[in-house]
């Protein structure tokens, strides 16, 4: 079984602030890591490969330094890895990102299954997986919590829909996004780190792609546009009490009693 896993490099911290006078984003440190939800996708792929044979290929889109997440995936068990990187991809929203991934994936060999994490911790949209499936013209199932069966032609999965769950069968090729309950991700092994140290990350740029319509990539290919960023509005009616805990507790009690909450 040939599996592709989509991964993304995200900031290691979410403590990004904004300087109100200049409107400039303030960062503390610049460290990056693999999107934590992608570890579950990768783990799922590796388990499936261990069971049925085949291969696991990881793909990412991002700046050249995002290569490091592909290298990390090698340590965890991926066989091959690709980065799609080009200045033309700059400023991509969900639409342009999903399209770029679909064009990159078209350059790879045939696959049976694409696995994505449920969402990223920086964008938090959970939209790239479904849009990618649409661009590739394959069915998808999101929020997969369990793989109940797998055959040559199809996979049976359990989908969490909030108040209900469904058991669905979908044929290959197809795409799933997985929840955290699916499998516990393994820890990177030192042995594999040494073994995979020299492994190449393949790179595709815009010039490698088949579709050269630059209205479909980067900022031009993005349908949404961020007009401005601003700090969240603070609450207007704030009360500050700086006193002994017992005194404050009395005051809180009186307040919520007064408001008829209890």
């Amino acid at each position: 079984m040939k599996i592709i896993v989509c991964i993304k490099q995200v900031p290691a911290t979410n403590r990004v602030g904004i300087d109100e006078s200049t409107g400039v984003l303030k960062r503390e440190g610049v460290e990056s890591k693999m999107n934590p939800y992608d570890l579950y996708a990768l783990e799922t792929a590796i388990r499936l490969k261990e069971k049925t044979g085949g291969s696991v290929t990881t793909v990412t889109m991002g700046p050249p330094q995002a290569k490091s997440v592909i290298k990390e995936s090698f340590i965890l068990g991926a066989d091959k890895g690709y980065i799609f990187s080009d200045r033309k991809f700059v400023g991509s929203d969900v639409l342009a990102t999903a399209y770029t991934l679909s064009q990159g994936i078209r350059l790879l060999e045939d696959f049976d299954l694409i696995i994505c994490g449920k969402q990223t911790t920086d964008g938090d949209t959970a939209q790239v997986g479904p849009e990618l499936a649409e661009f590739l013209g394959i069915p998808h199932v999101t929020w997969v919590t369990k793989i109940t069966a797998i055959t040559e032609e199809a996979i049976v999965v359990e989908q969490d829909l909030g108040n209900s769950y469904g058991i669905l069968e979908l044929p290959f090729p197809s795409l799933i996004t997985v929840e955290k309950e699916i499998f516990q991700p393994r820890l990177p092994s030192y042995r594999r780190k040494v073994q995979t140290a020299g492994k190449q990350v393949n790179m595709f740029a815009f010039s490698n792609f088949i579709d050269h319509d630059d209205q479909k990539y980067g900022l031009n290919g993005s349908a949404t546009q961020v007009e401005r960023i601003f700090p969240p509005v603070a609450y207007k009616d704030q009360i500050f009490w700086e006193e002994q805990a017992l005194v404050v507790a009395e005051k809180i009690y009186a307040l919520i009693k007064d408001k008829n909450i209890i």
Partner: protein
Amino acid sequence: MAVLTINNKRCNLCGKCVMVCPFNAISQQDDKIEISAGCKMCKLCLKNCPVKAIGLIDEKRVMVNKEEWRGILVFVEHLEGNIHPVTLELIGKARELADPIKHPVYCLFMGDGIDQKAENLLRYPVDKVFIYEDKELKYFRVDNYTNIFEDCLRKVKPSIVLVGATSVGRSLAPRVAARFRTGLTADCTALEIRENTDLVQIRPAFGGNIMAQIITPYARPQFATVRYKVMTPVPRVTRPWGTIERCSVLPEKLRSQITVRQVVMKEELPGISEAEVLVAAGRGVREQKDLAALEELATMLGGQLAVTRPLVEMGWAHYTRQIGLSGRTVKPKLIITCGISGAVQFSAGMNASECI
């Protein structure tokens, strides 16, 4: 293609752009400034360059005719005919957005045996309910649901499409938006309308304590998803005026590659979304055993204990108790937060609470 260019004759290599870039996309290579693919086009370097060495080349983009797209369409989510309450919140918001631009409010309702339920929707301020009924549409399957959605949008041509940010909505909306090559903004916390029918969408962004104002200026329809309990449910109207339009599609559009083997209702656990009082614990709670004190307080107030994401990640609580962007949205009468800094991903999930 919009690109940033650097005028090397002007650039004095002061390094200001390297410093202000929030995405680390600018670096100095020998005696030149280079911008990498990490650039998100925030244009902060452009604004901050003291010698105006950074320029923007922006080609004109193809623009849709916005006049051709009229109306605000709400996707009606349901399970076996039971309409999800987020739908009524979206209808309320749709009405609010539609009135100033004098657009109609539509509902799209697809399923099996939903006739009667569609009648119920007319009690709310909607102008028209489009229904697609077929046994193939009994359960949500993303491929044929997308086909039906597409059929309806091609026919109705609404300017705006609102979908609940539920498990179903968040799987379906991106697929439909991609088919129309248009924008979709997830988990909007506020929506406003402009005279030119552009929808102003506000949501937390960049994974930080920052809100972003997003528009879809070139494409239609404009898609947005909104969480349950973020907007206010719409009251019924005294004299309904809406109508129902039955729609049909070619059989091949109803075909799905996905087979539903079983759908099981989960046991009703008292969820934090419905609680009137919540005591929420965050990372400032140092030890798991301290949660017991907060749980006790919650019980005394007749409420429930909720948590932030880090506590779920540490395995201290089940994710059904998590508030925030990757958890639940809550709207209790009272929420007491303990050891919570108030990151925007958290507050987006509880901002609408009456007393914090």
